[in-house]
Each structure stands twice: as structure tokens, then as C-alpha cells.
């Protein structure tokens, strides 16, 4: 079922949790709502579910306005951050809870639960109580409970927030498979940008109750619409400088910025892997000192300091790192091969930027 939200606003007293948000979740889509804590993403989810009443705006599920429908009339499944399993009920009874309320007959319930336990890889655990399960199992029970009455929409609030990193990884892959199998329209909230990237088909980025950007993981990563998105998604070096003669000057670094008037302060962002570092001081034009080397498993991160005191991060794959023989404290040369001029905070996605266009282009070293 398609979900559509128009001008959704929710205020608590004088605080605005969600300020006029509009977006669409397409039929069968797995969409991630991403944002730092306090950005209003959970409130959006609760508003769609009907657990909160919107201050303004409309919610449509399958083209029908559902503002005045109660939670159960909306036919949604909701997975809570802390599982919210009923402690005094067994796994079986937890999953059967919604079905009993809907007055399914006994045989149908048994059949549905056997089916769900198999789907969730929870066979044989039906008789256990929640406290006898691991975190990952509990979360799967919670998802099974939400799915049991065949909801038209599945809403998940930080579904993997409370389990450890390894289990989280397994659950993510499992969720993607589950979604492929069931193809139920799903919306999940996360503050973990990696999780959002990996799991969702599309991401909506929130900040302070506002929608910052909606798009595919690649769009959001490669073409952040706002400075916030650029800072929040992935790692990015961000420097500020004043425009002089069509160039943003940051110490000895210069970034072409045609079309901007002199004296304007601009923020320039570039990903760590666009910072090339060499031990030969003559290889690139810019000079710096190597401050720190971090081993990340799949790659290395170098922290360098320019003579002006700027600290930049660079990312280097293992092969390349092994060819060079870096020692902390040595002089290196570097170049920034690709950059973007970031839209100003609060100005919104006013600057339409594509890689290769004048304001986001490769630099010749």
C-alpha cells in the first residue's frame, strides 16, 4: 500500500517535533527515515501509525485519508525499538495476540504462527518467554507479531538499535530478504547512516523536524542537497573560505567557485578518498604533516595537518598504503581531486549541483 504524507506537523507545547513534512512511500518499497536523535523521525512514524495525533497535515494510506482512523483501523504493523513484547506471554501468545483480538479461529492462528515462526527462523521457540530469548530473537518475534495480522504497512522504529553489532548485521540482511519475500510496504527509522544505506531502497534524511533530502542511497551520498546531509552521511572534510577572484581560498588551498561574488563565505566539502596523499613532497602541490594513521580494517585513514593549521582526513586502500612507507610526523604532499561547494545551512537545497558542474568539479593537482 502506498503511504503519502502531506504537510505533516506535530508540536509538543512550544517545541516543534515535525515541521511540515511531505513525502511518499511507494507500494512495496523499503524506505529508511534517517536522522540524528531528536530530528523527529520517530514522531513521523508514530504519526503515520496513529499513536500521535498530528497538529496539522494529512496522512494517506492507499489513497485514503486516515487522520481520523484509530490505530487498529489503519491496519499497520508496528515494531518498537525496545521490542515491547508482552513479558508474561510466550512467544506463541505474543505473536497470536493481535490475531486473538481479531477473533481468528484457533486453527487459522496455529497455522499462521507456524508459518511465521518458520519465516522468522524461530522454529521450536514458540513456548519460550521473551526473557529466555536473545536480543536478535526478540526482535524477530516483535516483527512476527507485527506481521501476523497481515498489515498493509510495516513500520519499524529503530528495529536494530538494541542489539549488538554482529547480530545487527545479520538482522539487516535478514530484513532485506524478508522484504523481498513479502514485499510489504515498509518504513523504518534509524540514526545509523550505514544501516539506512544498506537496507533501504530509498532514504529520507531528517534534521530538526524538517525533511532535508529524499533519494536513493547513492544520490544522498554523492549529491547531498544540504550541508547537513553532507555532514551527516559518510565522512566529509568541510572547510570554509572567502571567495576571491572566483576562487574559494582556504589557506593555501584554492577551489574554483565561478558565479559567486567576491567576499562571500562558502563551505567546501570533499570526501576523504578524494584527498590523495603521497610521501614524496614534490608529488602534489600542497604540503602537510602526517598527524595520525588509523587502521580501519578495510582501509587506512590518514590525518594530515596543513601549514595553516587545517586538519584533513584522507582515506587510502591497503595496497596503496603498503606501497608508501608513512611514519607519523613526516612531511607529505597532498591534493584534493574532487570537491563540492556546499549549500548554506538553512538555505535549503537551492544550489543544484552535479559532479562535473562548475561548482562541484575535479581539481587538477
Amino acid at each position: 500500500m502506498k503511504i503519502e504524507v502531506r504537510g505533516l506537523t506535530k508540536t509538543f507545547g512550544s517545541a516543534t517535533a515535525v515541521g511540515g513534512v511531505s513525502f511518499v512511500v511507494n507500494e512495496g518499497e523499503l524506505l529508511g527515515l534517517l536522522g540524528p536523535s531528536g530530528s523527529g523521525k520517530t514522531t513521523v512514524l508514530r504519526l503515520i501509525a496513529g499513536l500521535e495525533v498530528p497538529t496539522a497535515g494529512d496522512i494517506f494510506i492507499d489513497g485514503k485519508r486516515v487522520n481520523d482512523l484509530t490505530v487498529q483501523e489503519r491496519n499497520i504493523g508496528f515494531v518498537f525499538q525496545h521490542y515491547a513484547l508482552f513479558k508474561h506471554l510466550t512467544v506463541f501468545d505474543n505473536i497470536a495476540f493481535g490475531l486473538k483480538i481479531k477473533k481468528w479461529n484457533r486453527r487459522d492462528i496455529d497455522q499462521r504462527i507456524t508459518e511465521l515462526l518458520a519465516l522468522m527462523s524461530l522454529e521450536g521457540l514458540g513456548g519460550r518467554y521473551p526473557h529466555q530469548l536473545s536480543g536478535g530473537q526478540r526482535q524477530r518475534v516483535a516483527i512476527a507479531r507485527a506481521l501476523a495480522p497481515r498489515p498493509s504497512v510495516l513500520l519499524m522504529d529503530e528495529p536494530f538499535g538494541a542489539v549488538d553489532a554482529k547480530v545487527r548485521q545479520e538482522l539487516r540482511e535478514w530484513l532485506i530478504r524478508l522484504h523481498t519475500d513479502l514485499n510489504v510496504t515498509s518504513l523504518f527509522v534509524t540514526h545509523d547512516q550505514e544501516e539506512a544505506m544498506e537496507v533501504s531502497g530509498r532514504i529520507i534524511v531528517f534534521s530538526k523536524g524538517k525533511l532535508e533530502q529524499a533519494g536513493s542511497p547513492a544520490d544522498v551520498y554523492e549529491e547531498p542537497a544540504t550541508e547537513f546531509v553532507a555532514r551527516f552521511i559518510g565522512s566529509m572534510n568541510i572547510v570554509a573560505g572567502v571567495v576571491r577572484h572566483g576562487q574559494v581560498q582556504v589557506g593555501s588551498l584554492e577551489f574554483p567557485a565561478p558565479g559567486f561574488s567576491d567576499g562571500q563565505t562558502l563551505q567546501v566539502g570533499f570526501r576523504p578518498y578524494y584527498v590523495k596523499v603521497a610521501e614524496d613532497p614534490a608529488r602534489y602541490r600542497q604540503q602537510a604533516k602526517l598527524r595520525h594513521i588509523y587502521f580501519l580494517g578495510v582501509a587506512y585513514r590518514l590525518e594530515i595537518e596543513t601549514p595553516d593549521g587545517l586538519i584533513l582526513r584522507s582515506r587510502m586502500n591497503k595496497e596503496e598504503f603498503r606501497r608508501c612507507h608513512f611514519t607519523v610526523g613526516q612531511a607529505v604532499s597532498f591534493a584534493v581531486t574532487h570537491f563540492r561547494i556546499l549549500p548554506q545551512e538553512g538555505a535549503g537545497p537551492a544550489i543544484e549541483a552535479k559532479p562535473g558542474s562548475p561548482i562541484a568539479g575535479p581539481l587538477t593537482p
Partner: protein
Amino acid sequence: MDDRVQQAAVSLVEGRTLRCRGAWTMPDVAPVERALRRMTWPARSALVFEASGIEAFDTGGAVVLYRALMEARRQGCEVSIQGLRPDYAQLMSLVSSHWAAMVAEVAPRQNGSERFRASIRNRVAQGAGALEFLGESATALVRLVASPRRLRWRSCLNSLRLDGVHALPITGLLTFLIGVVIAYQGAEQLRKFGTNIFIVDLVGISLLREIAPLIAAILIAGRSGSAYAAQIGTMKVTEELDALQTFGLSPIELLVLPRVLALVVALPLLTAYADVLGVFGGMLIASNQLNVSFTAFLSRFEEAVALRHMLIGLGKAPFFAVIIALVGCYQGFQIRGGVDDVGRHTTISVVQSIFLVIIFDAICSILLNWWNL
């Protein structure tokens, strides 16, 4: 502080250059901030902030410098900054890009009357919330009366066991001791006048009418009221209440009504039990200290203590029960966010329910006195 770094300072040279020196870091930048606030900027002139002398800089320093810059510009000066190191300039641009948000986030200081109004508004909102809860509970009760099959018997009986049966030992012990204490205190006075037998009136009437119902209510407020707040609050924190709602169940019907009903049954029973043990305590002391035998005590009890005293005491108990259960559950629903909130609201529930119980009791006493009961 590092002695190579100078104290932060500013000076206005020839009305054209503001020379900034030293460490502009928190908290040492404070004197500079005061100096800048007092500074009279030369009207409508070109001003240079000569910042090469700044040896250390943090966002605190950047805020001070930026504020001075804005102030000078506001007064019509043409201001430029010179010699600020690039990394410090980066801090400055960070501060400037977040300036509007920062200013907006610092709440303006409220004066007395504004604070007063805000607290009144807050109270009114709280009162409205409590009324809403009361209304919802009442409508749930009406629904229940209309179709009694909706009642969660199992939950009621469980509550009855936990809040009634399990409270018997402590309620019994405490009212017994209260009976002992009252009899001791009375014995001192009565012996002086040789009116030992009146110990029966003293113990009987005060316990049956006031003390036993109050002690039972206060104990239950501490035992069960707080437990209700904590149970419901925990369910709220773990989102179990929301989960119930997504399945179309009303938390009030499911959690509040069984508890209220169980307590309405349990508290009068506990009060009757407390009556018995309290009087027994008084009786022990009477025979021990005042030579009033058990038989003398009981025969005097029959003629001195009217039935209405016991009925009044027992009649108040269901009302106490409603107050305690509703306050406990209401405070449970009030819990937002975290675990520390559970503790806070549990405490509030005990204080509020005891407070309301005593207020209600006092009103009863006054009214009953008017009607000569």
C-alpha cells in the same frame, strides 16, 4: 595557564584598529567580553580588527569576537578582520554559520510575572491532563458496566492477591502497633482521673472511625499506588502501552480498571481486618496497664462504640481506594522518556495519593460533624 600565552586583551588604537591579543579561550575571555560590551565604537568609520595577536582561540572566543563584529556593524562601522589564523578563521565561520540557531536556542530570561504565568499555564495543562485521564477512566467504566464481559477477571484477581492478600501481614502488624500506642497514650491520662474504662471509647472510636482506614490507605498508597505508577510507567517506557494500542486495546480498560476495581474491593476488607487487630492491640494494653479485662473491654465496647463509627470508617475506604489507584495509574501514564522518570513519578504518586487521601478524610470529618454523625 601556559605562561607563554598572554592574558586576552583588546584595545582600540586611534579609533580605527581594534587590537586583539592573548588567549581568547573560555573562561579567560570573559574580561574581554566585558570590555567589548562597554566599548563605544567610532561612528560610521572603517574599522579593522587586528587579530594576529590572538594566540589561542576557541568557540567561546569566536562568539565574543563575532558578537563584537556584529555590534560594530550594527552601529554603522565598516569592519574587516585582519591576521586571523586560518584555523581560527574556520572556527569563526563555524560560529557565524550557526549564529542564528545559537541565538534562537538561548531562551530569553523570564521575569517574575512571566515565570508565574508560565507556571500557571503549566498547572492548567496538568490539570487538564488529569481531567482527561479521569474522563477516559469514567467512560471506560461506563463501557464496562454496559458489557461486563469485557472485564479482565484474571488481571483483577491478580491485583486483588498482590494488593490485598499480600498486604495483610504488614497492615495487621502496623494497626496492631497503632492500637498499642493509642492505648498507652490514653492510659497515662485516664489513670490520673481513675476513668480507666474509657480506654475502650478512646481506642474503639478513634481506630474504627479514623485511624484504621487511614493507616490502611497510607500503606496501600505506599505499596500499591507506587507499584501501579512503576508498572504502567515501565510499560510506557518499553512501549508496551503503544503496542497494546496498535492491537486496538485500550490501556485504560486493560490496566487501570482492573486495578481500581481490585483496590475498591481490597481496601475495605483490609480496613476491617485492621480494625480488628488495632482494637486487639488496645485491648492488650488496657488489660496490662489499666486492669481492664478482656471481658470488661468487650462488654463496654458493645455499648460505647456505635456501629456507625465502623461503617463510616469502612465507607471511606472505597473512596480512598479510588484515589490511590487513579493517582498511581495516572502518574504511570505521565512518565515520558527514561528510567529516572519512573522513579520520580513513583514518588509523586505516593505523595499525591497520601495528600489527597488525608484531604478527603478531613472533608469527611467536617461534613460528618455538621450532620452530627
